[in-house]
């Protein structure tokens, strides 16, 4: 025990004497969390739109007014023909083009329905669907409005036998204000803690190896378990501190909801960090130079992060990828965080994944101990 304690102390001294590293370890997560929480949003506002209005009637210009009134679109150009439309899309001057054909009003009055064409720049696919749904809701809203005001030539207005009206009420639970930060801040916090923790541990042993100090440790009577434990503990404490700072920022700056029990979050974080840091140490034992360990660590970090549901929903991934994602500790931790913080879930819901994380942590650490060789090959 005393051996571990001394080694832990040595690691702490080593980290805190390197001012640049200390600065980086704490500042990078804080700054990135503060800045990037504002960047990670699909909330589409004020999409640049070009309207080609061949109809030029009160009905068509009413539609343009409705588009302009909402906060989703801004009509940057209003043209009578579609000359120059392609170029505007190509130059990214506009994202959406609404084409109102010549017989728009006439079709509405005569047939009760009229087509319009909506051309979207699908280059940024994620937003295309959202822009489309905005446009659709404005169009159907306008159609409903016209239903009341437009004199219809159909003569159907006499057939007012009682028709059951549909009363579709929609509710958004857990995040009714649609604050994207509530969703992203926990995710960003997890990714930052993971990146820093994994990189620091992955680089740690290879560094000692490169500098030759590993040899010195190897000739001491310390056991392999003591060695790995001493390498794990300092970074585990550091990561927990970073995690706590981030959580505090989330609460104080972004006001993220904390509906569940924070102790559950910490329990999950404690188990999760053992997995991540254990993997870092594992990488560190199988690579020889810092350059190599960095690349392997980077490789895994990227896969873990992008396949975790942090940025894109796991449910949308193909089945095989969803099964692979089951083995991804980041995915489980993120879903635990979101379940507890946003939906107020308790141990009865997230207990099993926490146990899973703990088991994985023990297994990963065991592997790192086994892989680590005191003798030089």
């Amino acid at each position, binding site marked *: 025990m005393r051996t571990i304690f001394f080694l832990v102390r040595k690691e702490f001294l080593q980290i805190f004497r390197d001012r*640049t590293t200390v600065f*980086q370890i704490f500042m*990078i*997560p804080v700054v990135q969390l503060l800045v990037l929480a*504002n*960047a*990670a949003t*699909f*909330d589409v*506002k004020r999409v640049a739109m070009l309207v080609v209005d061949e109809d030029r009637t009160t009905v068509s210009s009413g539609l343009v007014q409705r588009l302009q009134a909402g906060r989703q679109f801004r009509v940057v150009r209003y043209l009578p023909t579609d000359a120059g439309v392609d170029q505007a899309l*190509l130059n*990214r001057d506009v994202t959406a083009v609404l084409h109102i054909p010549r017989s728009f009003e006439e079709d*509405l009055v005569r047939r*009760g*329905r*009229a*087509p319009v*064409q909506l*051309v*979207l*720049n699908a*280059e940024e*696919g994620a937003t295309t*669907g*959202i822009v*489309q*749904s905005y446009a*659709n809701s404005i169009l159907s809203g306008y159609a409903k409005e016209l239903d009341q005001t437009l004199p219809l030539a159909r003569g159907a207005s006499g057939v007012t*036998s*009682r*028709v*059951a*009206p*549909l009363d*579709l009420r*929609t*509710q*958004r*639970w857990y*995040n009714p204000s649609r604050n994207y930060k509530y969703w992203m801040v926990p995710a960003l916090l997890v990714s*930052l803690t993971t*990146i820093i923790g994994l*990189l*620091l541990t992955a*680089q740690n042993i290879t560094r000692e190896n490169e500098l030759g100090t590993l040899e010195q440790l190897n000739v001491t009577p310390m056991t392999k378990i003591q060695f790995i434990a001493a390498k794990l503990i300092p970074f585990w404490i550091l990561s927990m501190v970073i995690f706590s700072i981030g959580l505090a920022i989330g609460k104080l700056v972004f006001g993220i909801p904390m509906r569940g029990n924070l102790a559950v979050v910490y329990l999950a974080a404690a188990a999760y960090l053992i997995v991540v840091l254990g993997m870092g140490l594992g990488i560190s034992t199988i690579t020889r130079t810092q*350059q*190599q360990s*960095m*690349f392997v660590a980077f*490789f895994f970090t990227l*896969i873990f992060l*992008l396949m975790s549901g942090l940025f894109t929903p796991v*449910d949308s991934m*193909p089945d095989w*990828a969803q099964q692979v994602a089951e083995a991804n500790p980041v995915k489980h931790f993120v879903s635990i965080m*979101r*379940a507890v913080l*946003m*939906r107020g*879930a308790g141990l009865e819901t997230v207990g099993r994944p926490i146990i899973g994380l703990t088991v994985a942590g023990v297994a990963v650490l065991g592997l790192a101990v086994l892989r680590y060789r005191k003798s030089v090959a």
Partner: protein
Amino acid sequence: MRAFLGFVRKETLHLLRDRQTLAILILFPVVQVLIFGFAVRTDVRDIQIGIVDPTPDVATNELRERVAASDRFNVVWTGSSAADLETRFREGTIRQALVLPSDVERRIGRGDSLPVQLITDGSDPNTAGIMMGYASAIVDRWYRDEVPGKGSLRIEAQARMRYNPTLESSHLFVPGLIAFVLTIVSALMTALSITREKETGTMEMLLVSPIRPKAIVAGKVIPYIALGFISVLLVLVAARTVFGVPLRGSLFLLLAESVLYIITALALGILISTQVPNQRTAMIAALAGLMLPTLLLSGFIFPLDSLPKVLQWLSYIVPARWFLTIVRGIMLKGAGLATLWQETLILVGMTMFLLVKGSRGLAIRLG
């Protein structure tokens, strides 16, 4: 010149002798593109939905079947009471619930109103919006078929998706991944290779040699340009053959822009390496410092147009942002230099700036 060539040769040998790193470097981008091209998608599918139907009849059966038949939805639970909906949401077993009124058939017959509730787990506002759109479209259509006679006005939007008609996710992500992977690999590699010389003390030796600091930097960078270029080629081949990502513009232009961007990223790595003392700080700066900003401020995943103004300005200094526009422009839109000259010029400017700053920093630090 001879000394310089010798130096380049030394660097190349360095790179080639470390087989493990070389293998990682070459395979890494290809593997990433393959995995993410398949796995990273933004379309919403397989929504787990629960349906509360107190009195099942022909009309509600029809609706339930329509929901089940849609490949967007996966009906995981059907019940007669909304009592334990909240638990199901909290557990995460359902993400959406459709609560139907009782006696739907009779209500339609009598012309009473049909209060249908659609509850969505709104934690993720974007996905929630899309889920609500899909579900209400199904309900609307069912209502229109089930309750005839009400011919309300309709404006039908025919959507056309330009540049990516099928909205295939891989076509959007693969160009982004090229930019992303190139940034990290190139910047990290140079940063590490220069700081390693510092850490092991061999940088001092190089600086006292007759080779000028600028030449040292150039010599360090040249082998990595070649390596980066090979990566780009492999990634492009994978993108074409595996995902069928279109290449509508000129291949030559794409390759030329890629070389330009590789140099930008390498210059970034040089700059990082001159500012930090050892490999640890270099890698934290390159990875922790570059990874998320490149991911989030380049338009790779999140649209730049919706960022707050300050962040939009900040994104201007992220090189990947410009390169991403170029790659997407060439591959998806078939744009040429006539459209992309601004982005290209900005990248050239950035590279110049980074190179000058980097080589100066090097000379001053150890000089």
